[in-house]
């Protein structure tokens, strides 16, 4: 799970955890690189097309998340369906305020998700603590203090369109990931 520099995965965020056996193909020569490039493309395509998100709503943004998943906006069109358990989800949408009491749960949920995993901070509370940044004594001031975040979506709460925009942004990021055959 931890980032292994020898495998050449990009450091940090979300960790595109490449499975080790494929990495050997880097040594196969130029033709292999083309193949590897295509494999990357294919794998990334699969990953971005099937972003199952964890049903994890703490506050107001959770309602917009539901509405984004419902009939009008229909996240299912993007292949994004909700899963109730972190083990089967790829995307942790932090929708809502994270308090200090909740903080270690968020961290645990993130750790329970299998690689590769992605995090979207949705709304002001998850971005920076939002409305509770100034006067509240018990709100985590940004979920990026707990877990690595890939995409931040501003809004309080963001419109469902903004959420979809964020997911499409994440898809773009996923497409640029190098999983296999990156220079060791």
């Amino acid at each position: 799970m931890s980032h292994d520099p020898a495998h050449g995965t990009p450091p940090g965020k979300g960790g595109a955890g490449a499975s080790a056996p494929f990495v050997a193909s880097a040594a196969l020569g130029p033709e292999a690189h083309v193949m590897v490039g295509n494999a990357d493309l294919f794998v990334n395509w699969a990953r971005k097309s099937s972003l199952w998100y964890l049903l994890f709503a703490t506050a107001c943004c959770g309602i917009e998340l539901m509405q984004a998943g419902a009939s009008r906006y229909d996240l299912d069109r993007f292949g994004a369906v909700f899963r109730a358990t972190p083990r089967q989800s790829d995307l942790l949408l932090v929708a809502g305020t994270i308090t200090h009491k909740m903080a270690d749960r968020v961290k645990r949920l993130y750790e329970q998700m299998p690689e590769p995993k992605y995090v979207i901070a949705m709304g002001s509370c998850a971005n920076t603590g939002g409305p509770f940044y100034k006067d509240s004594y018990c709100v985590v001031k940004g979920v990026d203090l707990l877990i690595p975040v890939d995409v931040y979506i501003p809004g309080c709460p963001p419109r469902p369109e903004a959420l979809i925009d964020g997911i499409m942004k994440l898809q773009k990021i996923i497409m640029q990931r190098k999983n296999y055959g990156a220079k060791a």
Partner: protein
Amino acid sequence: MEALARSLMNAVPLLAGVPLWAVTLLLIVAAAVVILVFALTFEGVGSLVLRKVAGDIQARIGPNRVGPNGILQFLADGVKLVLKEDIIPANADRLLFKLAPYFVFVGSFAAFVVVPFGVGLIAADLNIGIYYVMAVTSLVVVGVLLAGWASNNKWALLGGMRAAAQIVSYEIPVGMALIPAVLVAGSLSLQDIVRSQGGLLGIFGWNLFHNPFSFFSFFLYFTAAQAETNQTPFDLPEAESELVSGYNVEYSGIRFGLFFLAEFGDMFIVAALATACFLGGWNVPFFHAATLPWIWGNLLSLGVFLAKAFTMVLIMMWVRWTLPRLRVDQLMRMAWKYLVPLTFINLLGVSLWLLVFKGKGIPAMIASLFG
């Protein structure tokens, strides 16, 4: 298989020197591969169709951005699941944890062997076909129970226990509801059952219309079988809103994928059994597919069979997206207080009917009235 192998050896002189067992083995493997490919394709497409149907019913679209009109969605899901990190929880029983998904998958996949897809399209026409299906699909409960136990998660354990209780209970009504078809055909072989529903009576040759009791049998079977495949309203083992995800709560990646596929495999098996036992199987209405040349007859009957089976699958999905879930005690009450007595009464009724009317169904009697 052996007979097929022998005829193949006779037909192809190149195989003359090869021992019989090798050819048989080869044929078995080939058949298994064909069925596996079919099952996987069906299960992949099934998941997509499920989402599309859900979309339609829920006034939305469903997947439409992956590939043209979303048809590659299942491929993306599959590839992603295969490449996911495979987590085994720290305190899980590692061996059983790994084994469980294969039990479930094999349980649903092995039943494909006796499904009569067409006139001659059946991997193994066992003379105990129905019995085999019932026995092999029961393997699913072992897998589910193992998964629930081995995960070392209380939600999973509850899910596994629910599944065990549920599937064991519902085996009885499922079996009892299928026996009328067996009685009418006088055989346990699925191919025989399908053939017995042929004839030029069209859809009235079906067991569904054979007599009032077999008519009800179909609905009883369908209800009970929904429960056996853990479909809503009987999806208690994985009840998303109660047990988070039930027995597969700790599974990720390809192991979860196997559970996922098995679900659709089970669905198809139920639909196929309902088709074969009550809806005339591959019989084309008002037409003898067996009289056509081998290839065309098989293709036609395969098409008819799949059309019927997929309709049943669609109905299952439709039910799934409409009804709420039962509670566990209500589920048991439904099995033991409603379905079991009713199926037994039905069985009695069919037996008496066959005894009194010498095996003739209502359509046949009406037809005989008109000469």
